[in-house]
């Protein structure tokens, strides 16, 4: 595909980083913009392939459903094995309200 590459500007990188609560140092913005532009450009190349190349798009399948039957999920153990910190059975996360940041 030869069309112009989609432009991810440093401003777009900043906006996305803010939404993702990520800090990107000022001097890395243009490098990130360049890399992201290449990634988005690659996806655009995929979109440009005609659908026939995939043998037409199949009808989207209906999502399967399950009966409303509760069963224990053992999440407590999964959390114990994976959560970095727990207190009184709760997960512990940085305070997001009233923390002033």
């Amino acid at each position: 595909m030869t069309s112009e590459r989609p432009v991810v500007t440093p401003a777009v990188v900043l906006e996305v980083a803010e939404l993702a609560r990520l800090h990107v140092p000022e001097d890395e913005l243009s490098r990130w913009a360049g890399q992201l532009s290449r990634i988005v450009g690659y996806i655009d190349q995929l979109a440009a392939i005609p659908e026939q190349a995939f043998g037409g798009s199949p009808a989207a399948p209906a999502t399967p459903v399950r009966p409303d039957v509760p069963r224990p999920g053992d999440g407590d153990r999964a959390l114990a094995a994976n959560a970095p910190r727990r207190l009184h059975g709760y997960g512990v996360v940085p305070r997001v309200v009233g923390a002033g940041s």
Partner: protein
Amino acid sequence: MSAVESPRKIEVFPVIGLEVHAQLLTRSKIFCGCPVTVGAPPNSATCPVCLGFPGTLPVLNREAVTLALRLALAAGATLHRESQFARKNYFYPDLPKGYQISQYDRPFSTGGSIAIDTPEGEKAIRLVRIHLEEDAGKLLHDTPYDDVPENVSLVDWNRAGVPLVEIVGEPDLRSAEEAASYLTELRRLVRYTGVCDGDMEKGSLRCDANVSVRTSPTAPLGTRVEIKNVNSIRFVAKAIEHEIERQAQSLARGEAIVQETRLWDEKGGRTVSMRSKEEAHDYRYFPEPDLGLLVLDEKWIAEARGALPELPRRRRERLATAHGLAPQDADTLVSARELADYYERVVAAGVPGRLAANWVTGEALRWMKERRVSTEQALSFSVSPERLAGLLKLVESGEISAASGKDVLVAMLDSSTEAAAIVAEKGLGRMRDTGALEAAVAEIVAGNPSQVALFKSGKTQTFGWFVGQVMKKTGGRADPAAVREALTRALESAGP
């Protein structure tokens, strides 16, 4: 169309739209088999799916869809045979996956309406859509524990993945009162249909209000402010009233309204601004790749339709027409499906509709409140509809007076004895002994010579006083007609 005058005398016309989340009454979560629990130990009702562990896949709970369909049908909405789930991406610690599975541009239901009563008559509040989604977990900022540092919050993911419907209303509401009516109707509807328990305090029904004002009823819509965090219908009305007033005063001062989210501060009785940072919404919705389309077939829709009960407004009309009830009484009776069922069982047991309505909306409801039996629990009230009917038949036949009936009802509250047995035991039945009635009349007449003199001098209104005295003397058991007859005779023959 209601206008609100601010102290600075700027007339504003509010425009209000509500977004309501209702927790569906399923036993398990929407995309995994974890039980939907109340008050379970933190994180005990979770699994790798609702905790968002890599490699897990959601599987849709059929019952959640059936309940959502039932509500959409009750609201007269258009159902879409194919709809799609979407990822709503945002970062918050109560959202383990980093996205919420919701519906976005292809919800299962659009349109429909909720009818409310206004002083001008019935008004239909249109719905934009009803869609399915999953709930987030619960953050605890102020904890009861001493060993929790101030810079952390605790999180319980038991609620993550609990099924919800979001009911998005058009901005058709024009006052806080209309908003309260809408919420009341909606809550009644979700309860009637068995879709949600409608408990706002526990958060199973949650309401966000979008409020804007304009300076004429036809002006373009003003900048809207969203109010979150309101947990009762009364507070929704108060928060909206406060917000209308706040916006009116801003306009009167020549200030622009800022589009923002405000929280209802219950203690201060006002809305307060959330930080604008929280407003940087860009949810980057995209179709949920882990789920196929939600495809509804006729059988599924028919199943949901088949479970629809008679809806409250229709039932109100039927009861009012069939039994000649006052609109207010009919409205009270249908306020909860179970209370209306209670009433209809009293009637079915052979009590005339109006008598039954008077007693159910009066004494029975008063005692239910006294005993902390909610209208939704009416059918488990200690005086069953059939026992109340037994009592009311005695009242209707004149076997006991209405006043005695109230005493009998009190005696029935804490016993399983039938009304007739209590009447017999307490000797409350109509006085059949004419000799005893004559004696009571004679005693009253003899003991009150001055009243007799008044009556004789032409003050005939004292007759009512005599009737009252005899009724009191006989414990309300005498037949009023017989009392009048005996009194007339006794007073005529009394001296001087």
